[in-house]
């Protein structure tokens, strides 16, 4: 083949065996990514199969986690995973929106880069550091000031009060959500900032031209224009929050119980896997249950991240 190329270079000037090899190699690398994802799903499913067989659909609804009786249920970790992630979103989205608004519309130009970098550095701090910092700094603050305050003021109100009861350990659902919120804040803020910048300047100029205030431009022009991508960014943050391990493990209290109080301890899929894994011998039903939990976590985060990607992509196309 190389001879042909040498004899008739004018016919197929760009053809060379190197091309075929290179194209094949990068294609195989691309396929490898698909293989990795499939292998993750399959390996977790196969590993969790004994647990799925032993407990059936009840695995999803059972609240027990009893290594002595060999009964393992996923309901509590699934609840903890969802509730902490959703609470984290509730706390993080207003902050992220404010930060993105500030960075795109309010901050002086020379100030945008350093502030933007600082917010992005917040995303670079390793998860374990958030966990440790949360455990030694946030937990005492929550236990000594925040939680007693809410228990005293809101704890006796009939319906809402149930959310603010129990002993103020400092750890618990709300503390985890708070740490998670700080961790996902930069991801959501960065996405929002990027999509806010895609709004054509002429739209904003027109709105300013008819006398709109900065806030009105944000609410009536920028937000409607970027609505879909903003939701995509929030979903990205949700996907991140669902799978966070180390930070949550330090501060959630690690108790297999569904608590109505925001201050109650709990666990998440990631935290129970990280904590229980060392005590799960290979081949045991417990290890299989942990792998089954991992499979469920993968399914949940895959769905959330897939939705996030689809929402963010529509923006790019249009």
């Amino acid at each position: 083949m190389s001879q042909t190329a040498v004899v008739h270079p004018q016919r197929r000037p760009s053809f060379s065996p190197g091309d075929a090899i290179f194209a094949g190699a990068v294609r195989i690398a691309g396929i490898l990514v698909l293989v990795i994802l499939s292998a993750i799903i399959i390996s977790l499913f196969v590993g969790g199969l004994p647990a799925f067989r032993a407990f059936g659909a009840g695995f999803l609804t059972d609240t027990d986690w009893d290594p002595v009786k060999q009964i393992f249920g996923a309901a509590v970790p699934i609840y903890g995973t969802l509730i902490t992630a959703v609470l984290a979103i509730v706390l993080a989205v207003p902050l992220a929106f404010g930060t993105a608004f500030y960075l795109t519309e309010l901050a002086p130009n020379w100030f945008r880069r350093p502030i933007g970098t600082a917010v992005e550095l917040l995303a670079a701090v390793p998860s374990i550091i958030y966990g440790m910092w949360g455990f030694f700094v946030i937990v005492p603050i929550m236990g000594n000031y925040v939680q007693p305050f809410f228990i005293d003021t809101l704890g006796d109100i009939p319906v809402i009060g149930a959310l603010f009861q129990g002993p103020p350990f400092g750890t618990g659902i709300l503390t985890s959500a708070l740490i998670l919120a700080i961790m996902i804040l930069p991801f959501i803020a960065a996405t929002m900032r990027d999509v806010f910048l895609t709004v054509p300047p002429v739209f904003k100029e027109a709105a300013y031209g008819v006398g709109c205030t900065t806030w009105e431009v944000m609410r009536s022009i920028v937000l409607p224009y970027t609505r879909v991508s903003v939701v995509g960014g929030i979903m990205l943050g949700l996907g991140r929050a669902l799978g966070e391990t180390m930070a949550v493990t330090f501060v959630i209290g690690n108790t297999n119980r569904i608590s109505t109080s925001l201050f109650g301890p709990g666990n998440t899929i990631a935290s129970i896997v990280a904590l229980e894994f060392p005590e799960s011998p290979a081949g045991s039903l417990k290890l299989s249950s942990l792998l089954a939990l991992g499979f469920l976590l993968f399914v949940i985060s895959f769905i959330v991240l897939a939705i996030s990607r689809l929402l963010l992509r529509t923006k790019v196309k249009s």
Partner: protein
Amino acid sequence: MSAFLAAGRMPGGARDSRVAGQLSRRRGRYNLIAKILCILATLVGLIFLAAILGTLFWLGFGGLHLSVFSQVTKPPGSGGGLLNAIIGSLIQTVIGTAIGTPIGLMVGTYLAEYAHGSMLGNAVRFVSDVLLSAPSILIGLFVYQIFVAPFGGFSGWAGCIALAVIVIPIVVRTTEDMLQLIPTALREAAVALGAPKWKSIVFICYRAALNGIATGVLLAIARVAGETAPLLFTSLGNLNWSVDMSQPMSSLPVTIYQYAGSPFDDWVQLAWVGALLITFGVLALNILARLVLRTRN
């Protein structure tokens, strides 16, 4: 504001102008409140960053002695340092990055240069983006399932593989983005000179995108250097000196995890030192990555 003042002077009676004045004041107030809230929101994020870094300095700097770098981890009460954890982290991060980077580079090249709207290309891009945000603990479980459990136990190699899987999508994303920024004219010039496509990619595009690709690699290193969860199930951690890749291997994040949760004061102190080292290392890498990218522009 001038628009509102003009509205006040318009003909149409005192009542109209009063209503217009009230309206404009209300809009101004909302605007002010929104602006203040946004500044506060930004401040909250910055305060958290400052609080974390401040705490690390406050609690970690005092324990930063030479022995941290010269001695291995020892039982509580007998001093010791973090040498084996630091070396273990370096080895696993370097090898993990070395495995993951070429693969990520090739995938990114495929997406930017060959995929062009093909089904396979879109699927690869989608899956890579999902992997980018997938819980890292699951990658640890995955490597445990396919590597640790069947091939005789926890090892440094398993840790490297887990980190490599995390590196790949990060490098893919930056490589594809950077290659797409390269002007078509540059590729056409290479083709016009008779260069085959692979040569134009390797010798022209890679070179032009070098800073961007280097940024991606630096960010990937920064990310995996602080990863804890995937190493718990792969390299496990090792409190003794070991650079044997087929044995369980220590790493800074896992050691921090073990020490921070322990009841011993000197271990907790060492955990803070380790946390200080890893955080400032990771943040320095991030800032370096940004500087590398900026030199290009």
